[in-house]
C-alpha cells in the first residue's frame, strides 16, 4: 500500500487531566501520572493544573518540545465530547489527528465504582490500551482530493432555486435539474403566504413585501448566465463523492454526464392523497385539498374576477358552509404519516380568514386537533381569524357523506363531548406531506441514509457534521417546512458548499477503509457489505502472466468509515484506518487478561 508505513514506536505524551474534583479523590491523577511515567519506553506522563487552565496550549507546546512527543494521549474526557477539541489542540503542535487518543476516565472510570483500587486498575488498562493504539496505529498520509467547482442542484422549488442562485452568484457553474417543465415548486402554486399575508412569491405585484423579497425569483434564476437549467430531467446515476461526482442526467431528448463537486438535494415532498380515506368521500368534487382551493382562488384572481365570489367545483354555486379538516393523512397512525406537517394550521387559518373576508355571510369553520403554528406572527394571525368570525371546532371529523347535493359531516365535538353532524357545501382537506416517490432510490445513489419517516433527513449527520460527503439536503426534501425556512436552507447549503469547494483540495482526514492488494482475492463480499457504494471491484491484468484478476478498491470520497467491510473480509485485506487489526487485537489482549 503506497504512502503507508507502520509506526513502530512513538514518543507518547500522556496527559492526565486533574480538572475533575471527584477524579482527584478517587484516582489521584498526579500519582497515576507518576506511576505511568516511563521515559525509557517513551511514555511521558504529566498531570498538571495548567492543563485545565487558560494557557493550556502554551504548556502543551512546551511539553511537546521538551519530550519530542509524536502522539498525545489524554486521560479524562471522552472522545465523543472532547475528541475534536484535543485534535485541534494537537494540530497546533503539529501532531496529526490519528495520533491523538482520549481515555474517558471521567465518564467511564471514576463514576463507575467507589473502590479506589478497582478504579485505578481499570484506568491503567484503559490508558495502556490507548498507548498501544498509537504505537500499533498506521500512519496515513492525509488524503487530498481535487474539488470540481461546479454544483448540481436537484429540484427547482424555492429551496433549490435559492441554492442555485446563491452558488451562481458566488461565481460557480450550477446545473439545476428539475423533473417538471417549470421552476417554482409548490410555493408557486400558492396565492398567498401566511402568516405574513403577502401575495404569492413572484407575483406581478408592484410592492415587494417581506416574503417576496426573501423568495428567489424565477426570472433571476432562469436568466443567470452561470445557471444551466435542465428541465424535464431526472438524475439517473451518481458516481464518485465530494469534490468529484459524475452524474448522469436524463431527459426525454438527451442524456448528459455532469461533473460536479457537490450536490444539493431539493426534491421537495408530496401531498398525501386522500383517496385512500374513503370515509371522507374524497372523490366528491366539493371535497378538495387546500392546494385545489388555492387553484380556485388563483383562477379568480388571475382572470381579474375579483368582484366575483368564489364558486364551488361541483355546480358553481357560491358556498355557504365551508369546513376545513386538519390533519388528514398526518398525525395519523393509519393513514399518511404520524408526523405533523408544520405548515397546515398556519395555512388553513389564513385561507379560512381570506374566505370569510370574501364571503362574509358564509360559515367558515376549522376542525382541528391542536392548533400548531411554529412561526413568528402565527398567534396574531390566529387571533385575527377568530375575530373575523372563523369558527374553530376541536375534534376529528370521522365521516363525510354526500347528502342532497351537499355534504354531511359527522364528528365528535371534544369541547361538548358529543357526536355532532353538520352540513357543509365545501370541504377543504389540510393533507399531510410525504416524501417524494423516488427519494429512497436517490438516497441510495447518493450514498446517504434515510430517516425513519423516509426523508433524506436533516437529523442525520450528512447535513451538519460531515460536509465532506458533499450532499446537502434542503427544503421539504428534509421534511415539511415553511417557505422562509426552505429558502434559508438553500442559502445555508450554498454558503457551506462554497466554503468547502473554495479550498479546491479537500482533505479526507477521517477513518477510511483501505485495501491491501496483495491479500485481496476479489471475492466481492466487501462490495455487498458497503451500504454507500464506496467499494467496487476492479478488473486488472497481471502483466507477467496476462491473466485477469479482480481486486477491491475503495473510493475514499464515498467511504463513511464504518468498518463493516473490514469485518466482512475473509482474508483481512481491508482495514479501517484508526481501527486496524493490530490496534484492536492489542486492545483486546489488554482488556481481556490485563489483570491476570
Amino acid at each position: 500500500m503506497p504512502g503507508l508505513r507502520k509506526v513502530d514506536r512513538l514518543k507518547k505524551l500522556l496527559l492526565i487531566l486533574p480538572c475533575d474534583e471527584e477524579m482527584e479523590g478517587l484516582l489521584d491523577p498526579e500519582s497515576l501520572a507518576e506511576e505511568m511515567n516511563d521515559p525509557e519506553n517513551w511514555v511521558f506522563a504529566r498531570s498538571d493544573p495548567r492543563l485545565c487552565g487558560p494557557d493550556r496550549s502554551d504548556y502543551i507546546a512546551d511539553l511537546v518540545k521538551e519530550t519530542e512527543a509524536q502522539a498525545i494521549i489524554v486521560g479524562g474526557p471522552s472522545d465523543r465530547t472532547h475528541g475534536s477539541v484535543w485534535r485541534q489542540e494537537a494540530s497546533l503542535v503539529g501532531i496529526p489527528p490519528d495520533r491523538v487518543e482520549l481515555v474517558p476516565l471521567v465518564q467511564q472510570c471514576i463514576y463507575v465504582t467507589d473502590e479506589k483500587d478497582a478504579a485505578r486498575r481499570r484506568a491503567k488498562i484503559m490508558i495502556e490500551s490507548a498507548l498501544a493504539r498509537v504505537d500499533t496505529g498506521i500512519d496515513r498520509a492525509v488524503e487530498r482530493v481535487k474539488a470540481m467547482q461546479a454544483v448540481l442542484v436537484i429540484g427547482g422549488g424555492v429551496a433549490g432555486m435559492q441554492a442555485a442562485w446563491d452558488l451562481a452568484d458566488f461565481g460557480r457553474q450550477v446545473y439545476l435539474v428539475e423533473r417538471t417543465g417549470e421552476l417554482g415548486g409548490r410555493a408557486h402554486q400558492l396565492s398567498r403566504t401566511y402568516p405574513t399575508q403577502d401575495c404569492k412569491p413572484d407575483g406581478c405585484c408592484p410592492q415587494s413585501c417581506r416574503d417576496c423579497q426573501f423568495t428567489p425569483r424565477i426570472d433571476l434564476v432562469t436568466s443567470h448566465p452561470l445557471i444551466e437549467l435542465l428541465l424535464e430531467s431526472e438524475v439517473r446515476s451518481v458516481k464518485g463523492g465530494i469534490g468529484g461526482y459524475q452524474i448522469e442526467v436524463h431527459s426525454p431528448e438527451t442524456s448528459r454526464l455532469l461533473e460536479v463537486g457537490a450536490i444539493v438535494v431539493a426534491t421537495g415532498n408530496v401531498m398525501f392523497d386522500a383517496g385512500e380515506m374513503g370515509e371522507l368521500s374524497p372523490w366528491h368534487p366539493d371535497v378538495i385539498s387546500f392546494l385545489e382551493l388555492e387553484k380556485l382562488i388563483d383562477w379568480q384572481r388571475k382572470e381579474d374576477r375579483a368582484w366575483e365570489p368564489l364558486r364551488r367545483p361541483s355546480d358553481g354555486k357560491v358556498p355557504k358552509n365551508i369546513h376545513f379538516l386538519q390533519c388528514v393523512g398526518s398525525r395519523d397512525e393509519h393513514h399518511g404519516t404520524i408526523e405533523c406537517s408544520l405548515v397546515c394550521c398556519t395555512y388553513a387559518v389564513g385561507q379560512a380568514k381570506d374566505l370569510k373576508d370574501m364571503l362574509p355571510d358564509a360559515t367558515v369553520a376549522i376542525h382541528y386537533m391542536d392548533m400548531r403554528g411554529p412561526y413568528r406572527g402565527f398567534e396574531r394571525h390566529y387571533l385575527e381569524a377568530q375575530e373575523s368570525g372563523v369558527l374553530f371546532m376541536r375534534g376529528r371529523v370521522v365521516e363525510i357523506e354526500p347528502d342532497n347535493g351537499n355534504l354531511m359531516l359527522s364528528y365528535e365535538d371534544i369541547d361538548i363531548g358529543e357526536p355532532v353532524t353538520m352540513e357543509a357545501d365545501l370541504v377543504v382537506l389540510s393533507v399531510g406531506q410525504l416524501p417524494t416517490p423516488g427519494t429512497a432510490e436517490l438516497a441510495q445513489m447518493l450514498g446517504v441514509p434515510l430517516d425513519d419517516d423516509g426523508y433524506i433527513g436533516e437529523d442525520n449527520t450528512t447535513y451538519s457534521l460531515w460536509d465532506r460527503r458533499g450532499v446537502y439536503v434542503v427544503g421539504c426534501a428534509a421534511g415539511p417546512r415553511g417557505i422562509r425556512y426552505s429558502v434559508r436552507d438553500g442559502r445555508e447549503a450554498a454558503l457551506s458548499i462554497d466554503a468547502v469547494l473554495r479550498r479546491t483540495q479537500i482533505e479526507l482526514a477521517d477513518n477510511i477503509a483501505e485495501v491491501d492488494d496483495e491479500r485481496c482475492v476479489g471475492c466481492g463480499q466487501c462490495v455487498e457489505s458497503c451500504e454507500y457504494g464506496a467499494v467496487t471491484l476492479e478488473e486488472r491484468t497481471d502483466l507477467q502472466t496476462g491473466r485477469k484478476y479482480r481486486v477491491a478498491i475503495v473510493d475514499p470520497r464515498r467511504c463513511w468509515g464504518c468498518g463493516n467491510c473490514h469485518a466482512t473480509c475473509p482474508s483481512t485485506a481491508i482495514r479501517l484506518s484508526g481501527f486496524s487489526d493490530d490496534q484492536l487485537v492489542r486492545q483486546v489482549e489488554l482488556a481481556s487478561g490485563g489483570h491476570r
Partner: protein
Amino acid sequence: MADSSKGKEKKKTTDGATGGDAPKDWNPRIVGFLCNWCSYTGADLAGVSRLQYTPEFIPIRVMCSGSVDVAYILKAFLEGADGVLIGGCHLGDCHYLNGNYKARRRVAVVKEVMEGVGLDPRRLHLEWISASESGKFAKTVSTFDETLRQLGPNPLAKERLL
C-alpha cells in the same frame, strides 16, 4: 438435528458448571465493544449519571457494531475474558444504515462456534443501547456480570493459567 443438539449438550457441561469453583476474589472480566455513536455515548452518559457497574468491564470503542471482527471476539475469550459484550445502535437506528444487522448475524454464528468449542454462548452478549439509554447500559453490564458469575471463570483462561 437431533445428533448435533446432543453433541452441543455434551460439550456444554465443560463450561458453566464451574461457578462454585471460582476463586473468592474473582470478578468476571468483560470486554465491551461499543459502537461510537450509540453505546459508547450511552456508556459516557451512564458515568455522568453516576450509574455504577462492575469496574471489570473494559470498553473498546469501535465505529460500528458491524465492524467487530469475529476474530476479536474469539481472541478475547482466548486471552481469558469471561464475557464479551457488544453494544450497538437499535435496529433501524444504525448510524451506518444497517451495520447492527450484520453484527447480529455475526454474533449468531459466533455463538454456534462457541458451543462447538465448549464455551457457553451466554458469555457473548449483544445489546442495542442508544446514546440516551444510560440506565439500560448500566443494567446490561450488571445483568451480564451476574450471568457470568453463575457461569464461573472462562475455562480457557483456567487452562492458560495452568
